[in-house]
């Protein structure tokens, strides 16, 4: 580890900005086939408690959200990356 490393506290601001995205225009790249699309173009099946989000090109799972009374669990199994515009000040 580089001696000049910090810890996770340092990314509170950066990650707050990353996680505050407008979801539907966030770009996804599928881990399986590499298809690049915005999230609005994915194929979604909403059930209780699972919401499954699939690549509309190859059908593989991008991610699953499991929702209980107290928590959301985001299982990111099939995403190569997410890309979102930075908020305008």
């Amino acid at each position, binding site marked *: 580890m580089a001696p000049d490393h910090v810890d996770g506290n340092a990314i509170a601001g950066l990650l707050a900005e990353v996680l505050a995205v*407008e979801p*539907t*225009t966030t770009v996804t790249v599928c881990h399986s086939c590499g298809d690049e699309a*915005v999230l*609005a173009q994915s194929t979604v099946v909403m059930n209780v408690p699972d919401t499954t989000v699939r690549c509309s090109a190859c059908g593989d799972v991008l991610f699953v959200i499991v929702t209980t009374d107290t928590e959301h669990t985001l299982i990111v199994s099939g995403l190569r990356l997410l890309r979102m515009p930075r908020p305008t000040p």
Partner: protein
Amino acid sequence: MTSGATWHIATVATVRPLTPNASLITLGVPTWPGNDGGQHIDVRLTAEGGYQATRSYSLASVGNSTRLELAVDRVPDGEVSPYLVDDLRPDDQLEIQGPLGGWFVWKPSSDLRPVQLIAGGSGVVPCIGMLRAHSAAQSTTPMRLLYGLRTPEDLFFADELKTLGSANPAAISLVFSRLTPEHWPDPPGRLSRDSLAAHTIGPEQRPRLFVCGSTGFVETVLSWLTELGHGSTDIRAERFGGI
């Protein structure tokens, strides 16, 4: 305008029948930040036992008003829509989240490429929002709507569409699948690739297209648009499931 996952308490102002199967609901939301044409809200209902159900509804209202307008179709055996259509009363309170969505949205801009909206059934609601945003901005971008529906009785926002159609007859096209109004020029029939081509802006004008309706409707229209020569990057879609 921003999009954000903020919960608001909405108070029902009015509920009135829009068609035999749908109601127009207006909500007062003092904390509403405004919204763009095509954006939606999530409505969350909580039952006495704590069970919660959330559904998305497009907004017909646009701009900075804190009075929101949504048109809700009754889904048979639905968990949320029958309550909203049949049981909701003025002064009832609802939890709503929004404004949501940034993809299926039209905002006024200097872009002169024409805009073609294509709606199936209650998929017309976000298109009404876009048409209102277009009017409010006095936009010179050409915008047209093709609205597919079953019968004249199912028509949402009839007066508003009639006014828009009187001002510009090319702007609004209705295609009835089962029953038409009297003296209608075309017989009833399901939308086809040919009728879609006849009632929409052609690919040579490179329109931006917005398609909203049931998942089956949207998939069918998207395949036709591609066959007609529209570019897939010019098309944005919103599917609301299998009704």
